[in-house]
């Protein structure tokens, strides 16, 4: 049953993706029009759609900076944080 449901959704992937975008849009509209922002602690939180922007930028930054940190050659040598699996065996 569960597998059938997942397969059903996967077969209609484009519709699912469109639906997700609609949800994202509605969420921002909800934030801008209906949410009571009295309990916000800082001015910046009152910018319309602030937390959407924050979530997206946070995600992109985390991925890009972490991958850079893992792949960059440190100290001008061949040493990388992401090393071959047998690194400690050699």
């Amino acid at each position, binding site marked *: 049953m569960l597998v059938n449901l997942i397969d059903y959704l996967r077969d209609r992937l484009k519709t699912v993706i469109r639906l997700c975008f609609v949800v994202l849009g509605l*969420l921002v509209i909800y934030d801008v029009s*209906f949410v009571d922002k009295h309990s916000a602690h800082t001015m910046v939180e009152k910018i319309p759609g602030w937390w959407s922007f924050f979530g997206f930028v946070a995600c992109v930054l985390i991925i890009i900076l972490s991958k850079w940190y893992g792949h960059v050659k440190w100290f001008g040598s061949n040493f990388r*944080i992401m090393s071959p699996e047998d690194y400690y065996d050699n």
Partner: protein
Amino acid sequence: MTTDFIHPGFVLIFGALLLPFIMGPLRKPYLILMPIVAFACVLNMQDGTYGVVHFMDWQLTFGRVDALSQVFGYIMTLMCIIGSMYGLHVKDPKEHMAAWMYVGGSLGVIYCADYITLFIFWELMAFSSVFLVWFRKRKESLPTGFRYLLVHTAGGLILLAGFVLRYKATGALDFNLLDVDHPTLYTYLIMVGFILNAAVPPFHAWLPDAYGEATVSGAVFMCAFTTKTAVYALARGLAGLDILILLGVIMALYGVVYAVLENDSRRLLAYHIISQVGYMVAGVGIGTQMAINGACAHAFAHILYKGLLFMGCGSVLYMTGKSKFSELGGLYKKMPWAFVFTLIGGLSISAFPLFSGFVSKSMIVYAGFEEHLYWAAFLLTLASAGTFLHTGLKVPYFIWFGKNNCSKETWEKAADPPWNMNVAMAVASFLCIFIGSYTPYLYKMLPYQHEAADYALHVYSSYHVSESLQILLFTALGFFLLIKKLAPEPTISIDMDWFYRKGGRGFFWLARKPIQTFDTWFGEVYRTVGLHPLMTTAKFWSWFDWHGIDGVVDGLARLVRNVGTKLRSVQNGRLQYNIYYAVSIVAVLIVAYVFG
């Protein structure tokens, strides 16, 4: 001890000692019954002080029952029931014994009220949990276990030095809030002892190292007890120590960065423990009643959802023998229920509304905002985007969907796990949703009721729900846009353990090259200068022995042989003995120095 207080830790320790004698059809009921008895002991307790023992000049207290110890005691014993259910199929009683001893150690720390008792149980935790790594029985398990033990032994000694110095300075051994406004050397030593167990960088590398290598059900226990017991110890002894805020925020972000790089699902979850415990450590550092409530609530929720995640990924490892993303993928057809349970764990850790993390994690961030620590609150919120990115999205996607990297053999072996694993995961899933949906269950247990009631009004406000949903869903958008960058890479990530893994090799090189050269040279000199006269003397003694007083000499020889045997057992070079002797000697020296 009175009937109001039966120590749940002792129930489990005695239960573990009896376990090998309970055989056949009684074994499985017993494995569930004893944790339930321990849980019942916790439920039956009334606030107060129990189990006070006078030992030499000291007063040892085994049972301090108050709101703070109760919330931790409750969740630890509850997790013990779930963990034991998950490991019910494991036939080897030794693994269950190690796990129960370990939980017993954790409960001993939670209910004690002096540093000597704390130290004994602290060490019991390290020395019993290491077996959960060794019982994996892979080639890497043995060295990993020794590294784990070595780090924890060092941490234990720092803690010992801290409270012994405090005893010397103040004459007090009680385990209560230290003077965090005027920290001294011993405050920091005690702090280092505690934060090493909480896996605060740079003392954290033992955690992914050991938890990634532990047995399938062992990891479920390990992910719950060591770090959260340390959070309890910090909340009890060092609440409000400012530096913990900074350390907590660093932890929360550090775990996220390494989780991006990680290819092994259980090591990824281990890095996320560091990240989540970062929230708790920061909460303890903020130190207000709201923040301590948040740290306790988050520890409670975390134990359940992290246990659930380790159970989900553990069931994949148990069934397929694989835990790396680069060797898995597309498994939803084979293991759909494991997927659903892991997803519930993922949504809980990510703090989705109606799941447990939502009502616990946000309390710490809220406390940060209340104290105008905006930098900390925003960075912790940033880390929560990272949490959803990895545990909510990356783990389920790359195991159950994504590119199918399974070998034919892996694919054939994959199926939903045995019933007991499913039951344990279902119970944990239910609790994750129940805590998130019905807030009084958790909030009524928190130490500061007034603040908890205050926050209960705020937690499901439209602002908080909208804030969380926006962060999480736009993180998901970022994930799917950048999914190619996150494709699994078959690598390991170098972390702080590099220093003692490679440093250890430096020591071996020193032992092998210069010291061995000297040894060889000395051997040569001895052979030429020492051996020849010795042989001549020996011949003379042989003659002397043969011709007269062999009775006396035989007696002497027996004595020499006995001493030699004793010496040989000391010097046989086995690492565990060396660690044991080194630790004992240092501990005795410290105690002798201070009390002498």
